[in-house]
């Protein structure tokens, strides 16, 4: 072979070869895809999926995909299983940082909605007064991490580049000793920053006659400090299933805890994956081929105590029906066929559980 025929990695030639090989290898497994689909998967694999945090060094999405399809599924099921892959929503570390920035900006813009007495004499007076009031008000905010994977360090530095916050405006975890709450600055509102709310179950649920979850726990710890203060629950990603559940559960919860004021303020929304959703996108269509596949292999899945809190996880924890993968981990709200490793199941995106 002469030098000019060598294919150099990360060039357009290697990309074209990757597309060709992927198509051939999938075909051998019984999966037929178009050139466009092969290009799409190869591109996203190179740009995003290969960077999944829990792949071994040097391991690629494509190698896992072929193994995942080959080991786990019968030949006539692989085309259906591939539909899950076509519906993947992968959030890269870059995109997660953007969501973090956007969450701060949303908090800033949210303050605008409640600003009063901004003089409207002329444009200059209006803009100057508005900007000054936003600055005053945002400094009277406390940002609380509601999860350990929200990129809070990045969030805080981004916020600090725009306003002169004190260190105490940021609370690194909501489970804080009550004595530390005395050190908080004077605040008018609290933003609870979460990475993902996919079913709403981790945030709030009613179980065995009592309210459980992060929001009731937060209230229990913070109650002497937040009476009448608006609290904004800000997941970077909110699923349609969670939004519905949270509205219903919070409505009931607030009736019983009238002194708490809490509002849902998501940064980005995500809907049930098209491979399992019904026509109007409001729930799972159990007759879809992927739904049937989920049911078929559910006996290989071993729901732990935490998973059981959300009911059946046949379509992901809490029935969220997602095909969402975060670069840092695959949420258990995504279809379990993607991430579980019980009973010799080979996961496409191996998940590290928070709850052990």
């Amino acid at each position: 072979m002469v030098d000019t025929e060598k294919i150099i990695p990360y060039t357009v030639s290697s990309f074209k070869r990757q597309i060709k090989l992927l198509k051939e290898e999938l075909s051998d497994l019984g999966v037929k895809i178009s050139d466009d689909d092969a290009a799409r998967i190869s591109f996203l694999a190179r740009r995003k999926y290969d960077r999944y945090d829990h792949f071994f060094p040097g391991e690629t999405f494509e190698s896992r995909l072929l193994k995942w399809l080959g080991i786990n599924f019968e030949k006539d099921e692989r085309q259906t299983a591939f539909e899950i892959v076509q519906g993947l929503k992968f959030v890269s570390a870059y995109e997660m940082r953007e969501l973090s920035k956007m969450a701060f900006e949303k908090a800033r813009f949210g303050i605008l909605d409640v600003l009063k007495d901004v003089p409207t004499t002329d444009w200059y007076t209006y803009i100057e007064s508005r900007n000054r009031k936003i600055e005053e008000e945002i400094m009277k905010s406390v940002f609380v991490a509601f999860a350990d994977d929200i990129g809070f360090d990045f969030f805080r530095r981004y916020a600090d580049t725009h306003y002169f916050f004190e260190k105490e405006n940021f609370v690194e975890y909501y489970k804080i000793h009550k004595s530390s709450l005395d050190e908080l600055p004077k605040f008018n509102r609290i933003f609870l920053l979460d990475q993902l709310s996919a079913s709403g179950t981790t945030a709030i649920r009613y179980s065995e006659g009592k309210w459980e979850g992060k929001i009731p726990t937060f209230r229990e710890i913070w109650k002497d400090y937040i009476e009448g203060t608006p609290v904004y629950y800000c997941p970077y990603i909110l699923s349609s299933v969670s939004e519905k559940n949270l509205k219903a559960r919070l409505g009931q919860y607030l009736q019983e805890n009238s002194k708490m004021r809490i509002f849902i303020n998501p940064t980005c929304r995500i809907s049930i994956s098209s491979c399992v959703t019904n026509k109007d996108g409001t729930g799972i269509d159990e007759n879809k081929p992927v739904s049937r596949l989920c049911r078929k292999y559910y006996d290989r899945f071993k729901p732990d105590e935490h998973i059981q809190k959300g009911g059946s996880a046949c379509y992901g924890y809490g029935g969220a029906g997602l095909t969402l993968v975060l670069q840092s981990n695959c949420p258990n709200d995504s279809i379990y066929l993607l991430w579980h490793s019980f009973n010799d199941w080979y996961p496409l995106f191996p998940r590290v559980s928070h709850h052990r």
Partner: protein
Amino acid sequence: MDYLGCSTVPFKLTPFDKRIIIRPHQAKSIENPDMKYHPPKLNCQIEEIDCVCVKRGVKGLNDIVSPLKIERTMLWLDPRLLGTECLASFIINWKKHVMPNVALGIIVPDGCVNQKTDLTYEIWKAEDSGPIYGGSPKESIWYPSLARDSSSLLHAMQKLDPYDIFPLIEFSDTAIELTDSAIINHTLMLEERGSRTRNFIYLDILHPDRVFEQFYGTLSALPRIISHVFQTVITPGGTAIGFLTVLAAGVLAESYFLTPSKEIPINSKTTNKGIMILRKCV
């Protein structure tokens, strides 16, 4: 830049504020119903001026505001029916020839901009006398909007032959559903030039003031000492708010543009989404 996300003006207009109508694009005499201009409701004086495309130089822009040397005032510009080059030239005129007490209020329509999908991309730079075509930079850093049509963008890339590409990707509350679609439309272009994923510039179009701040900073970041080697070239697209924010940042940073010739990005029938206010340090 300040952005007000409201369809009507939330403050009182002063007797000195003026709404600019740019002839011939926004003239009453145009008969074609699709091109008929529907002016926004703004209770202030109207000033008609000739566009740079018919009369080189927006002569008179300074005369319009020159009596107002002390009062803070605002020129209102509606981008509907203006060509990209015409709009850019107006903004650069405001930057270069209008006093610091005069702000520029740009009405931001809703929806996406129209894009020509032909192969008439031209390199130009906004000047106060009008766009200067040609003069392609020797080495360029290209910022194309991935909301544009893939084949015409690929053609534009081949014409420009950039040193590096920093794709512009709009990011909003539906980002997780839509971002990948925007990227995969351009796989060939991005792979052909080995554009890095870390080069992707996400534009948070829900907060355009931050987009402006970030992108203006990006464009201004190239050290002046090597600016004769690397020049920034922008191909804006996408939503009207994303387009206008990127365009304004590019014009004010005195970047080059690479856009289809005579493209009219915003048509006459769009509704108002917000107001972008550009002002100099007063």
